[in-house]
């Protein structure tokens, strides 16, 4: 099953209708199905650790599918970020469960039937919408990177160029958001900050002066 990743982009140029090579098509569908199945199992399995790592498997499958859709960098970075987040989520899943996590059957659901109906309805609506709408054809062509760069390299280059060029606002917005996340996260997560030891009146004299 060789995914023709470094395909000649010129082949795509002439045919306006973008054709995903047969192998990539099979890969995307197969990986998509794997992602859906592991995603569904997440809420059925009873051990917290297994639920977390099934979700991780689902993300890895989606990452691989994105790579198969010629988005090399974004696919691999989905795998990278999600493996890290699932490792951390595994720790928090286990810590923040009300009772002992690993061996208790997890029947902590309410209104299961209603949720099922709602999810099913949303799927049907989406699927019908997808099939009925005739999606626009490709308006532009995959980006051409600097000389000699592979097709995946060109795509990533265009992303970098956009981030530094006309989409600089994204970077400008994300950095304060990240700072806010760090500050808010640490404030909420920690029991007490650095002023706790100074006592309520912040002079540290009320508590027997063990300076």
């Amino acid at each position: 099953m060789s995914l023709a990743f470094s395909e000649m982009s010129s082949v795509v140029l002439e045919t306006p209708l973008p054709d995903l090579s047969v192998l990539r098509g099979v890969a995307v569908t197969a990986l998509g199905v794997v992602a859906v199945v592991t995603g569904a199992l997440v809420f059925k399995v009873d051990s917290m650790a297994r639920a977390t790592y099934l979700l991780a498997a689902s993300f890895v499958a989606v990452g691989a599918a994105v790579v198969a859709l010629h988005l090399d960098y974004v696919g691999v970075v989905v795998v990278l970020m999600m493996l890290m987040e699932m490792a951390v989520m595994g720790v928090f899943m286990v810590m923040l469960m009300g009772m002992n996590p690993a061996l208790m059957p997890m029947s902590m659901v309410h209104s299961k039937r209603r949720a099922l109906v709602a999810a099913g309805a949303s799927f049907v609506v989406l699927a019908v919408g997808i099939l009925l709408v005739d999606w626009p054809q490709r308006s532009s062509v995959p980006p051409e990177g600097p000389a000699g760069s592979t097709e995946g390299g060109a795509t990533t280059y265009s992303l970098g160029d956009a981030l530094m060029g006309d989409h600089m606002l994204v970077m400008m917005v994300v950095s304060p958001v990240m700072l806010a996340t760090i500050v808010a996260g640490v404030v909420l997560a920690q029991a007490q900050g650095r002023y706790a030891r100074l006592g309520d009146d912040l002079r540290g004299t009320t508590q027997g002066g063990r300076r």
Partner: protein
Amino acid sequence: MTGAEATSGWAGLLAVLVLGGVGVTGAFAVHRLTAVAPRGLTAWPWLSGWHPSEHALSRYHARWYPVTVVFLAFDVEMLFMYPWVLVVADVGLSAVVEMFVFLGVLLLGVLWAHREGAFSWQ
């Protein structure tokens, strides 16, 4: 490189996965032949010779949870760092300034978190 001949990079990785799987099952098969007994033993976990009084799998108090929040926030930086790597030479100084402003802001957050004691065990 015409499409046909250049088997894509990812086929190599898939082959590695398959080979890894074959290797591991091979090791287990060889072990069944060479071990003193093919079937594995089930034993109580080792607690210096005493019987365990409860299951080890529990809500383990990972005392470094504030670091995870700082780590996840700083990790988003990596998302933007990798594409930036490709364009630094062409876009020039403005790219460097922009990225390192982003990094400086985040490093500020890290130093503040360090002052708050986020990096020592709660």
